[in-house]
């Protein structure tokens, strides 16, 4: 079973994402901001990370840049999942090392399609 870390400051979004990803047979951990996510990654590197952009403490982009510098931090497949839906944001995310990008709102079909693109399914 692959392990996916869901990082979002909204508990509602985390719950929705968890339900979708559990149906796709992922084991789920959750974090409510980038800092907590980084701590979790240090303890146990996930296979995939579903990552919000705007969060208190450390935002998604800062987290991604920090993650890629960690030991083993190049491995997880990172899928942004955010309301930031303009080309400038998407481009910055890809440059920072994101593998795929979901523009909110999302549903199961989109998550499934994007995880497939990213080679996770």
């Amino acid at each position: 079973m692959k392990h996916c870390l869901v990082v979002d400051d909204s508990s509602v979004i985390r719950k929705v994402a968890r339900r979708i990803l559990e149906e796709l047979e992922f084991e789920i951990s959750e974090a409510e901001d980038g800092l907590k996510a980084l701590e979790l990654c240090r303890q146990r590197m996930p296979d995939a990370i579903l990552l919000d952009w705007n969060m208190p403490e450390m935002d998604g982009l800062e987290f991604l840049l920090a993650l890629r510098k960690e030991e083993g931090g190049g491995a997880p497949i990172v899928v942004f999942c955010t309301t930031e839906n303009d080309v400038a944001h998407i481009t910055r995310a890809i440059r920072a090392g994101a593998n795929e990008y979901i523009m909110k709102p999302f549903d199961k079909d989109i998550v499934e399609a994007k995880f497939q693109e990213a080679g996770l399914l």
Partner: protein
Amino acid sequence: MIASQFEYLQQFLKSRSGLVLSNEKQYLVESRLLPVARRHGLSSLSELVQAMQKPGATQIATDVVEAMTTNESFFFRDGTPFQLFRETMLPAMIKARADRRTIRIWCAAASTGQEPYSLAICLKEAAHKLAGIRVEIIATDLSSEVLDKARNGIYSQFEVQRGLPIQTLLKYFTQKGDLWQINADLRAMVQWRKLNLLESFAGLGTFDIVFCRNVLIYFDQPTKVDVLQRIARGIAPDGYLVLGAAETVVGLTDAFRPVPGLRGLYQTGQAGPSAATPRPRLSVAG
């Protein structure tokens, strides 16, 4: 709507678009046709069916036909056909058409354009292999409404997130507010025509690759056979036919045979070498 009116609709749709509407589909008729009725200032399906039967009701009739089509489509739908296009069909055709220098592709039920545009993207990415061979993509559909959308190439955020990798989206689309438009150079690669598969398409000429996906499923058996046999006549002897994931020619016609090991791919079997030499019993895929 009384039973005889539903029967009228069934017969009307069968003859106009080939659509087979089973008796259990009454709910579908209501959800699709009530909006059409309202658009024409009518308050019920009964009134709509009556209005359709009046002489000169061509606009209402067309609207009914179009409203009853299912237009769902995705970019790179089902994946495999496009992989086969890149890895099998296109390389074979580049070799076989080295002299004629043109490859002709037909999307026979193109709906809102995702299928022909997915092919256009594949061709863009294979441009260096084409060595100057011209590729034509002709995309047809029965419905003018979907063709208008296809021609504009404008898709919702939802539509571009199913089947398109983010890098492909950035590379070939331009953002317009919350919508995304496929770039002009890709739009220029596709020619659009309104065409009913029940009518003659001999005028389109001969094709090397035909995508006819997720439309035969709506037809009855004789209609499927008729359309397939006419496609066979419009396809080059070494050309390819691609059907949808739930469709096949097996048991319908021997105008086409499945290409061994390559799911969803069919050939007429008249091709020079493969027709002259008997196929080996055990063929290994790819």
